[in-house]
């Protein structure tokens, strides 16, 4: 079947999509957006997190046909139009929160969603928000640092 939707603000079209295929597969293999990672395929790890109509979801658990005519925003869509890294992405780089990097795309989207709702989350809020994102390098402390840094920069940006 054919599926058409909006990915990072641009209309995309995927052909010959199998009816049981996931949104994650379509993003990675059919429309050239491999940023979202495929790890557990069962919603346990969060590496494939994307926005679907503004809500963060595991793209491995969304059937491709369900995104027809809807809006998807992936980790690639967190960067600026100019290609520069977005605020959350830069904070992860600066805090050294990236080790093997496989979990990073999901963490970036989930952190972006957290800071959209609450620019100054408590440590407990951060842990709760990221509880569905697993880092098998176990670099959680640096990830916490990165979210705090992103929060501080976002607040500073809003003041200035």
């Amino acid at each position: 079947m054919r599926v058409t939707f909006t990915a990072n603000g641009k209309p995309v079209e995927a052909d010959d999509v199998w009816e049981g295929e996931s949104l994650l597969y379509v993003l990675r293999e059919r429309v050239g957006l491999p940023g979202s990672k495929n790890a557990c395929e069962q919603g346990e790890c969060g590496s494939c997190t994307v926005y679907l109509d503004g809500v963060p979801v595991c793209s491995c658990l969304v059937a491709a046909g369900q995104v027809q005519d809807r809006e998807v925003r992936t980790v690639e869509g967190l960067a600026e139009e100019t290609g520069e890294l977005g605020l959350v992405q830069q904070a992860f780089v600066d805090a050294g929160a990236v080790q093997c990097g496989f979990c990073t795309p999901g963490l970036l989207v989930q952190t972006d969603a957290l800071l959209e709702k609450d620019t100054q989350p408590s440590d407990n809020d951060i842990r709760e928000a990221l509880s569905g994102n697993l880092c098998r390098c176990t670099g959680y402390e640096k990830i916490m640092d990165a979210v705090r840094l992103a929060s501080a920069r976002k607040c500073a940006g809003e003041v200035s």
Partner: protein
Amino acid sequence: MEFLRPATWDEALAAKAEYPTALPIAGGTDVMVELNFDVHRPSAILDLNRVTELTEWTNDGSVVRLGASVPYARIISELSGPLPGLALAAHTVGSPQIRNRGGVGGNLGAASPAGDSHPALLAAGRDVHVEAASVRGTRLIPIDEFYVGVKRNCLEADELIRAVHVPVADGPQQFSKIGTRNAMVIAVCAFGFALHPKNGTVGTGIGSAAPTPRRAVEAEEYLQGVLAERGLWESGELLGTEVVQRFGELVKAAASPIDDVRGTADYRRHALAVMARRTLTWCWNDYGKQIRSAA
């Protein structure tokens, strides 16, 4: 495989009648796992995401009619007042991403004994009903009759779950769940408890410790008897250790768990008794405070 995308509820019912083996999908948090791992290859998938009324709920003051696809995240943020037990259970489902997609309709459709909604629904009162519909009409199925076996419910092949009807809480409700960590946990076992002071009853729900979710009927009857005989509904006085212990033992006796990868039957029975005592104590303490502050 067919991918069916009805735009309205009537179209969805027509599609289910035409393709009775079609697998309904809404949040996809259960269905997609089975597809990704090729556990299940249905003849057709019936996508319910376009049927927007499934994501709506109404509250007439006595009953909440909860649309099958209202995601857990919204049950927590919008319905913690009228449905406190279900909202607590919803908070233990998966992760934030999963709670943004999954809903009670999927839990009921899958009918897994480990589904987190079930203990809360069973405890919420005798008037909890699953609203199932087909082109033949609509029926309200009492929650006690809904679960018929391991991962089996009493739906007919042409029926879809439209909503679940849950009485608005008239007393404290609690939910407790055992797992290896706080997030992303399938229950080792779970327990829901509710006090219903208006009609002098209590509700229980056991999860993951029997072939189906079930109530602890003898535990409910015992506690109701004690509360009525000793006038505790009126006084709100302490229950005493003996009553709390006995309640825990009766809940434990109502389970028929198995040994599996998540835990042993013995552990589940033990944990259920502990959770039963705790949830009863939490609820009764809250109820006692309400009585004293009203006096």
